C-alpha cells in the first residue's frame, strides 16, 4: 500500500519534472492543502511476531548448488598430522585436519603450473579444527563421507645425560 502510494507520487513528480524541463510556462503546482494526512499505522500492515527462520544446513546444501559429485561422492579423512621427521618442533601436530580423496593433478605444459579438475583439492590446506568433533560436524555439513584416523600419540620416555656413561651399556662407543 505504501509502495503504491509512493510510486504514484513519483509518477506525479515525473510528469511534473517532464513538464518542468519541456518549457518554462508549465511550472509545477503544489497543492499542499489538498494533501491528506494518513496515519502511519494505516499504511503498515499489522505486526506479526518475529520468528527465526530455520534453514537447516541440509537445506543450504540442497539449494547451494554444490554438485552431488562433490558431496556424498567425496570421502574425507579426519586426522592429526604427524610431526614431520625433517623438523623437530611439534607445533603442527596439534590441530585436526581434513583431507579429501586425492584426485588427478597435472602440470601445465607451458608454465609448469599445477592444475586439477577438482574444486575441493585445496580444502585440506587451510581447514584446521580444534577438535575431532568439529571436523566431523564440518564433514557432515558438507555431506562428505569421512574416516577418522586416530593419531599416534607421542611417547616421552625419561632419559638423561648420565646414560652416556652407564656401565650397563653394551658398547661404550663415544658419540662424538
Amino acid at each position, binding site marked *: 500500500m505504501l509502495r503504491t502510494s509512493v510510486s504514484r507520487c513519483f509518477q506525479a513528480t515525473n510528469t511534473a519534472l517532464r513538464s518542468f524541463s519541456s518549457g518554462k510556462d508549465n511550472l509545477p503546482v503544489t497543492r499542499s492543502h489538498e494533501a491528506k494526512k494518513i496515519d502511519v499505522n494505516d499504511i503498515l500492515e499489522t505486526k506479526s511476531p518475529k520468528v527465526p527462520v530455520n534453514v537447516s544446513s541440509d537445506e543450504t546444501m540442497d539449494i547451494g548448488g554444490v554438485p552431488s559429485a562433490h558431496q556424498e561422492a567425496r570421502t574425507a579423512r579426519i586426522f592429526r598430522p*604427524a610431526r614431520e621427521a625433517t623438523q*623437530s618442533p611439534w607445533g603442527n601436530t596439534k590441530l585436526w585436519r581434513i583431507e579429501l580423496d586425492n584426485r588427478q593433478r*597435472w602440470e601445465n605444459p607451458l608454465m609448469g603450473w599445477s592444475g586439477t579438475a577438482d574444486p575441493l583439492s585445496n580444502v585440506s590446506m587451510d581447514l584446521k579444527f580444534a577438535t575431532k568433533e568439529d571436523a566431523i560436524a564440518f564433514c557432515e555439513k558438507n555431506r562428505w563421507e569421512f574416516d577418522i584416523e586416530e593419531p599416534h600419540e607421542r611417547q616421552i620416555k625419561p*632419559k638423561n645425560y648420565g646414560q652416556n656413561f652407564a656401565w650397563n651399556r653394551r*658398547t661404550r662407543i663415544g*658419540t662424538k
Partner: protein
Amino acid sequence: MQRIVRGVATKAQQQRQLSAAANAPKKVEVFIDGKKILVDPGMTILQACALVGVDIPRFCYHDRLSIAGNCRMCLVEVEKSVKPVASCAMPVMNGMKVKTNSDFVRKAREGVMEFMLNNHPLDCPICDQGGECDLQDQAVAFGSDRGRLQSRLDGKRAVEDKDIGPLVKTVMTRCIQCTRCVRFANEVAAFPDFGTTGRGQDLQIGTYVEKFFASEMSGNIIDICPVGALTSKQYAFVARPWETRKTESVDVLDATGSNIVLTHRTGELLRVIPKINDDINEEWIGDQSRFAVDGLKVQRLLTPMIRGADGQLKPASWEEALFTVAAKLRETSAEQKAAVVGGLNDVESLVALKDLFNRFNSENVMTEEEFPETSGGSDIRANYIFNDGIANVENADAILLVGTNPRFEAPTLNARIRKSFLYSDVQIGVIGSESELNYDYDYLGASAKAIDDVLSGKGEFAKTFANAKQPLIIVGAQALKGEAGAAILGKLQQLADKLSAGKNVQVLNVLQRWAGQTGALDVGYKAGTAALRKTPVKFLYLLGADEGKVNKSNLDPQAFIVYQGHHGDAGAQIADVIFPGAAYTEKDGTYVNTEGRSQRGYPAVSPPGEARVDWKIIRAVSEVAGKSLPYNDLKEIRQRLNEIAPHLARYRDIEPSPFIKQALQLAQTSGSIDVDVSPALRELADYYQTNVISRNSRSMAQAKKAALENKENPYAEAPIHARL
C-alpha cells in the same frame, strides 16, 4: 590419653602414605613457566617442558638418540641458578622453577644463535633444506636482526664436502656440529666409522677416510640433520616444502608396513619420508623404502598390451584386452585356471581376484611366497604372523633368529633389536647365516637342526633362552617352505609352547618378507605355487607376480597368461595380455603387515598413462566375462573385505591370533630338519634390489654398486660381530 591415640593414628597414616609412595613411582614437582607439573624423576627439563606442550628450541637433542648437550640452543632459566641451563641435559629436581621465555633466556639463545650463524653460510636460496630447516626457523624466532661477524676480516668457515655414497649429499660448510648424524650412525645404524675429527671451529663430521656410508638406514641422517648439511641426492634441487603436498601412507617394500609420508607436486611423486609411529617404525625407514621410489617412474606398463601372432607384445585398447581375457576365462575349464599373486598387492585387489576365480568355480589362487601346507599351515593365523608385535621386541630378554636376516628383511625391526641390545641385557642367537646384524649374537649354525639343541637345552644359549622371562623366536618366512619348512615350524611351535608356559608372550613370530603376504593368507590364498606344477594350467592370471616362481615350463604349452601389475618385469615378459595396474603410491589400498596389523595406504598421484587401480581392472574383467562382482566403488569393496575378515576394516590395530595351542596340536614334528636355513639376503649389496620397484630404481642400483665397491675398500671397518 587423647594425645597418644592421635599419635598412633598419625603413624598409621604415615605408613599408609609410605606404602602408597612405594608402589607408585615418586613424582617430582616442577614449575614450567609457572605451570605446575608432576614428572618422573630422571627426566630432563626439556622432556618436562614437552609434557606441558612447551617446545624448547634445539639442534643437537633428538628424541630417539642419546643426549649430547653441545648445541646450547635449549638454554632455559632456572630459578636460583646464576647461569642459563641446558635443558636437554639437566635432570629435573623437586621444586624446580623453570622459565622458558624470559628476557634472560631470550638473550642467551640470541647469543648462541649468533655464534651458530657466524659459521653458517648464507646459502638458504640454494639449500635443499630451505623451508624445512630448523636453523632457519629458529633464527627467525630467536636470532638477532644483526650479527657482529666481520667476514671481511675474519672470513667465513668453509669445509670440504665428503663423499659418503650415492644416496646422501653432503654440504659440510652448512654443518653446525650437532652430531645427531654421528649418534645415529653409532647407535641406530651401527656404522661406527662416522665420527668427528678436530676441535672447536675445526671440528668436522665424516668418516676420516672417505668411504661409503654402508648402512641400510643411511637415509635417516637426511631427516635428522637440522640444517642442509646432509640432504638427499635424489631430491636435490627438486622442490620446496611449501609447494608440495603430503600424503600420509604405508610403505610396501618390506613386510613391517612402515608409515611414510609421500611428498608430491603436480601429480609427480618427489620423495618419501618416514611418518612417526612408535608401534612400527618409530621414526626411521630403510633406504629401500625411501629411495626406491624413483623406480616407479621407469619401466612402467602404460597401456594394455596383447601378444600378436608374431610373438610381439603390442599396445591395445582396454576393450580389446578385456574381451580377449574374458573370452579365455570363460572357455577354460575351472581346474585349468589358476592365479598367482606377488608380494606388493593390496588386499582389495586380492579379494577381487579371488572372488572372480570363485565365480568361475576355481579355488586355484596362490601366492608366490611359500608357506608349509601341513602342520596347520596358513589355516591358523597364529602360524604366519608376528604374534608378539614389533614393539615388544624391545621388552624381550632373549631372541632367537631362525633363517632370517632382519637387518635387510625389516631394517626398522632390526633397529629395535639393536636398541634392545644396546640398552638391555638381551641375548641373541642366530640359526642361519653368520652375517653382520648390527649386534653381537651367538651363532648356532646354518642348519635348522640347531633348533633341536635349543629344544633339548644343549649349549649356553639354549640355557639362557630357557630361563628367559620374555623369550622371542623370529623365524623368516623364507625358512618355512616345503616339507622341511613344515617340520621347522612344528619344532619351533614345540619350543615356543615350552617357553611360553606361564608367561604373557606367544614367543613364535614369523617375519614375512612381502607386504602383501599376510593379507593374502588372511583372505584365503594358498601359499606357494606347488599346485601349479601338479596339473598344468591353461589360463594363468598373474597379479604382480614378478619373482619368476612361475615360468612357461611349469604350464601347459598352450597356456594363456595374463599379467596385471605396474612394471614390465619377469611377469610381463611371459604374458599374452598385459593389464597396466597401479603401484602403492597410486591407489587406495589396505595392507596387513607381518604383525597382522591392517593399515591403509592412500594415493598420492594417479596411475600413469592408461593404467588403472587394480581391483577395478579385475571388476571390469568380471563384468565382461559375464559374472559381475557385486561392488562398484571403494566403499563397497571395503564392505566385502569386512565380510570376509573384519580385522581388515579395523585399521591401525593388531588383530590378535588365538588358537596357538591348536596349532601346536596340528604341528608336524617328524621329518628331517637338517636343512640350511641361511637367508638370501646376507650382505648390504643384497639389500637394495629385492622387488620389482627397487630393481628398476636407479638410485638403488647405484647404492648396490657402492656397497659392492665398499667390500673392496681396505679401510672399511670390521663388522661389529667380528670386533666384539
